[in-house]
């Protein structure tokens, strides 16, 4: 009798133990490791911090339940089709160095055994990292490098969510065309003669030199007269000879592709040299950074920049407002082009994993090629995310679009970006011509 009790107790214990372990086994479903390579230190550390915060916020939304945010990934805990698996981000720092980036990619793939890669901001680093990922057949999503050549290499394991520079440059020329046709809010029709002459100055690495080429092509296509296009070193100490060279061409429109420090220097020098073009347009990056705004204060009024996210979007897109509030609570800044795209990049990863229902590279590849995320799930104002699977540009999101914002004085006296393009969502009258420094 006693032995029977003993056996019973023993069996009960066993049941309890298995009972305890059973559910935990299920709950501790496998983690999905995503390697994230960003410039966390070095010259672009400030951008790196934004990118990191954006990706981390997306991971937080994916892993937890946030009922008030109308986004599928925020409603689910973890990846539903993978048994609630959680996303784990492994951050690596490439310091803007392509060689180091390739080493880190190998480390992530072979040592950390990541299921996928996200990154890398600098187009040059994205190039080497995606080459490694391609060789090992590990899927990589790029959220923020905009050099058009990246998706022209025929890679099968590389997808890019952000629109690239060709679209952005096209947006610009559409805007210029719109000005001549009187489509822009607050601007009466301007004859084409008044804005016909263009000059551009771009930094001379991968990104800037591509932009410079695009401006050359498109100005011809749209019938503008590109009088001067020059390339300069981003680490330059003094841009006065560049600015005078631009001025000498007497352009009506000045176009720039600059990183942060050279953008600030450029505007300062333009101001000192009393340049007065009618339009100044920056190709994102430097022109959109909080530093740019904080350093230059009110002298940037009227400057245009292309981007994919502006705080003004909050008024049009409530979802963006909610995410922006969370981001602001975390970092103190509004979402910007860099952080919003990092967020969207990781979000795309979550949706692809959800659709693939497995972490096998082949399944992820299939899912990525057939994914179609509707625009109302995104914080950025795109029609959605859908990658092209054939043609010249493999893996490029075809539903993306850009915005052009203009710095204008806000009610509280600070400088903020107002949406100017696309015309149907513009949030303010465009200041034209530039008031001058």
């Amino acid at each position, binding site marked *: 009798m006693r032995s029977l009790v003993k056996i019973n107790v023993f069996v009960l214990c066993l049941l309890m133990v298995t009972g305890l372990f059973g559910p935990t086994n299920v709950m501790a479903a496998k983690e999905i490791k995503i390697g994230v390579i960003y410039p966390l230190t070095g010259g672009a550390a*400030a951008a790196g911090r934004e990118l990191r915060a954006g990706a981390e916020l997306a991971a937080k939304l994916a892993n937890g339940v946030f009922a008030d945010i109308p986004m599928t990934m925020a409603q689910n805990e973890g990846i539903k089709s993978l048994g609630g698996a959680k996303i784990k981000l492994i951050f690596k720092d490439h310091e803007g160095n392509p060689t180091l980036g390739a080493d880190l990619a190998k480390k992530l793939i072979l040592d950390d055994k990541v299921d996928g890669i996200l990154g890398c901001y600098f187009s040059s680093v994205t190039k080497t990292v995606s080459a490694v990922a391609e060789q090992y057949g590990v899927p990589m999503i790029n959220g923020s490098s905009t050099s058009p050549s990246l998706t022209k290499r025929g890679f099968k394991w590389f997808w890019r969510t952000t629109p690239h520079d060709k679209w952005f440059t096209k947006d610009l020329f559409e805007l210029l065309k719109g000005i001549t046709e009187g489509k822009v809010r607050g601007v009466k029709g301007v004859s084409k003669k008044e804005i016909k002459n263009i000059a551009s100055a771009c930094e001379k690495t991968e990104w800037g030199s591509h932009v410079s080429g695009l401006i050359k092509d498109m100005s011809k296509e749209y019938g503008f007269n590109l009088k001067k296009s020059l390339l300069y070193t981003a680490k330059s100490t003094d841009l006065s000879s560049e600015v005078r060279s631009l001025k000498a061409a007497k352009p009506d429109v000045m176009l720039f592709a600059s990183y942060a420090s050279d953008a600030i220097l450029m505007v300062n020098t333009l101001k*000192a040299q009393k340049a007065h073009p009618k339009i100044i347009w920056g190709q994102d990056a430097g022109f959109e950074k909080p530093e740019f705004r904080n350093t230059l204060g009110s002298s940037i009024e009227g400057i245009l920049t292309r981007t994919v996210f502006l705080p003004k979007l909050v008024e049009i897109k409530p979802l963006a407002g909610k995410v922006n509030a969370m981001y602001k609570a975390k970092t103190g800044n509004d979402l910007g082009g860099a952080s919003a795209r990092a967020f969207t990049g990781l979000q795309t990863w979550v949706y692809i994993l959800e659709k693939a229902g497995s972490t096998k590279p082949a399944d992820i590849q299939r899912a990525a090629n057939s994914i179609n995320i509707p625009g109302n799930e995104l914080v950025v104002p795109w029609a959605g995310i859908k990658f092209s699977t054939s043609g010249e540009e493999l893996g490029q999101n075809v539903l993306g679009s850009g915005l052009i914002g203009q710095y204008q004085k806000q009610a509280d006296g600070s400088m903020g970006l107002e949406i100017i393009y696309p015309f149907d969502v513009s949030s303010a009258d465009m200041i034209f011509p530039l008031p001058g420094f």
Partner: protein
Amino acid sequence: MSILLSSIVAGLLFGMVLAFISLGLTIIFGVMDIVNFAHGEFLMIGMYTGLFTAQATGIDPLLTLPVAALVGFSLGVICYYGFIRFLLRGPILAQLLGTFGLMLLLRNLALMIFGSEDRALHKGILVGKSFELGMGVIIPATKAVVAGLSVVAFLAIWLFMNRSRVGKALTATALNAQGARYMGIPTERMNALAWGIGVATVTIAGALIVNFWPVNPFVGILFTMIAFTIVALGGFGSIPGAFFAGIIVGLITEIPGFWDFITYTFNVGWMADVPMTSLKYMWVYLTYFVIMVLRPRGLFGWKH
């Protein structure tokens, strides 16, 4: 025509600014034959000093110069007694790489403390002001002031080195350290003084140029390279030489401007497409190389 004029004026101004930056390097080299890779980093420290002093106290950035001088002088003396003294005993290689190590240290400490963001002044009497001279020549007020102060600094240092007792002792140390020691000149202290003055001039220059250039921990290296060129062109150790070499280098960086002048005056189509601005600094290095080979002591060199 206005392109040509404004290029020349800008080249002269920029040259004087560059000469100011190189002054400290030439003093240090003149006295103890050591090439200082950390020179640009001292400039960076001067820029941060000016910036933070102006922001913390609310005074005009132009009045921060004494603070920058003080910081620079003590930093120079500390560096000398704590580090450079030991380097002087070693071969050239150790000296070059040792100061390179100092450069890395200062740059990365700055990165750790201040972060990599660009910071710039946006208040001050001069910030953002410029005046027109006519003929399309525009002079930024800040640069003009720095150029003026550069002339003053060169005159002061030149007078100091040639007229005062201490300065003469410094010059003696520069010409022949051993001989100077026999004559009872404390050469060790002279070296420290040279470091103090050398670093102080460059931090002053830094506090001034922060009026028109943003600062981040990486600004140093390009200035270091340009300062090397200037000092070598002028002849290592020659103070008037550095001034004139600075102006020459300033004009060389304006080559793209002269190029534009020819392009637009004679309307030469293909010239507009030559990427001259990307090659801006190449001409500086090339001039250095050519002049070094033709005249190894530099234009105004008096020792080798």
